[in-house]
């Protein structure tokens, strides 16, 4: 690992000042950053440790009904916060479907947003990667690309954002709170991760020195607790990134959907919310046919970026499954295998 300077600031202002220089990275748990530094894909000159900064680890209900989650809240703590998990069961399910218990105990909310793609060519300094080295080319285009993007990709980059957590956040209209040299600002989570286009090296909306301080769920995000699910297809039952995933949220009155949210994971360089699908679902009955139409609409613009056409059909099917399970009702206790369609808990629907 390349040598670096280690700085432990006492305040957010100090942290931002320390991060003004090029080559600086913020250090939270480091579960992704250290991995990339060991492999040489990330080579920061200095790390600014934000783990001790005050005021970044709260999970607080605000006066207007919004929920603010501090950037340093650990994944496991958020998922197991009883009041949070009751109000946002899908966010808890998505968190617990990701990584391992050890990683969830360390990894943070802000770090989850900031984590890099798991494209193996990005992680390998010997491979050509426009995201890591602008202009170098993209070895993934002709390489192992079975798990790569089917939406929003460009000729320059076909990587996906690997987060589970961000998928329900995008569907719920979460807002990212940011502090930086020019003051504080907010960005919709949906717009936080950038699509590659001509500049895949620009991964997020953050400017140099800016720090994610919190995620905020708007007041209306708590209205879906009774009918929502996160479903995730992966290469093994546990401790694997999504090939595709879907977060589905319904508000139901007298058997009619009054509002719906649908977002997909593992399909693009950002969590992919489908407002087209949401509009189709609004006012419809809880029928498989409707769910299939909505899922098809969500994937209408999908196209393979390599040997991954299968992901389009997988994403369509996992969307239908998530909607069916959301319609059936959020389980009172999280399933033994969060997000898994192979869970044995749902009778006939389990392996449909």
């Amino acid at each position, binding site marked *: 690992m390349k040598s670096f300077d280690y700085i432990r600031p006492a305040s957010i202002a100090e942290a931002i000042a320390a991060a003004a220089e090029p080559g600086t990275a913020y250090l939270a748990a480091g579960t992704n950053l250290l991995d990339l530094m060991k492999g040489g894909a990330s080579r920061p000159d200095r790390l600014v440790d934000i783990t001790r900064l005050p005021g970044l680890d709260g999970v607080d209900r605000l006066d207007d009904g919004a929920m603010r989650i501090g950037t340093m809240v650990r994944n496991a703590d958020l998922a197991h916060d009883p009041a949070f998990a009751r109000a946002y069961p899908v966010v808890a399910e998505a968190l617990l479907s990701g990584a391992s218990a*050890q990683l969830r105990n*360390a990894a943070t909310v802000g770090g989850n947003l900031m984590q890099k793609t798991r494209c193996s060519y990005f992680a390998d300094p010997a491979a050509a990667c426009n995201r890591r080295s602008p202009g170098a080319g993209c070895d993934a285009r002709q390489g192992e690309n079975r798990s790569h993007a089917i939406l929003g990709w460009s000729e320059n980059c076909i990587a996906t954002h690997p987060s589970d957590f961000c998928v329900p956040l995008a569907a719920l209209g979460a807002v990212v709170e940011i502090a930086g040299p020019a003051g504080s600002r907010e960005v919709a989570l949906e717009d936080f991760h950038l699509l590659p286009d001509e500049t895949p090296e620009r991964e997020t909306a953050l400017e140099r020195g800016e720090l994610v301080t919190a995620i905020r769920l708007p007041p209306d995000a708590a209205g879906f607790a009774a009918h929502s699910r996160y479903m995730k297809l992966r290469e093994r039952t546990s401790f694997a990134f999504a090939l595709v995933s879907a977060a589905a949220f319904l508000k139901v009155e007298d058997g009619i959907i009054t509002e719906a949210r649908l977002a997909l994971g593992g399909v693009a360089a950002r969590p992919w919310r489908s407002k087209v699908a949401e509009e189709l679902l609004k006012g419809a009955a809880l029928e498989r046919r409707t769910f299939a139409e909505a899922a098809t609409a969500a994937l209408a613009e999908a196209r393979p970026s390599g040997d991954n056409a299968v992901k389009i059909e997988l994403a369509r099917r996992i969307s239908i499954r998530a909607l069916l399970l959301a319609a059936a009702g959020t389980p009172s206790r999280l399933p033994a295998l969060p997000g898994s369609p192979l869970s044995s808990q749902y009778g006939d629907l389990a392996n449909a």
Partner: protein
Amino acid sequence: MTYVLNLTINGAAQAIALDDPRVTLLDLLRERLHLTGAKKGCDRGQCGACTVLVDGRRINSCLTLAVSLDGVEITTIEGLAEGETLHPVQQAFIEHDGFQCGFCTPGQIMSAVGLIGEGQAGTDPERIREGMSGNICRCGAYHGIVEAVLDAQATFQDGVKRKTA
């Protein structure tokens, strides 16, 4: 630059001078403090052989910079037994053949101690398997590991009942 860390390791407070911020908790334990129970398997957070408890929570020590941990309490496999008396999880791994070659075992045991402390899995083997999925066993001793976790957890609960009765 030298960084001074105050750590409590297996109950003993220590001030440790660190000359390089690149040292992971795993390398600090193994190479500098000679606590070689925690193992370096993948060194990338994928195998769980390096699992230790930091302030009672199980983490991958290979993906943690030691320098960022100033002030914490660390428990490693060396800190579990009390003298000649094994920790209930250690005892249960022996009784249920929860290992073969033993390389992953310190990580498995520390992970199991963490899992039981978290109190999320209950007595459902599927929840225990899911909760232990961050620990790979190349010998495939998973069946015995789940049995050991269930047994050790019951021992803990018996102990709590007896104490509170």
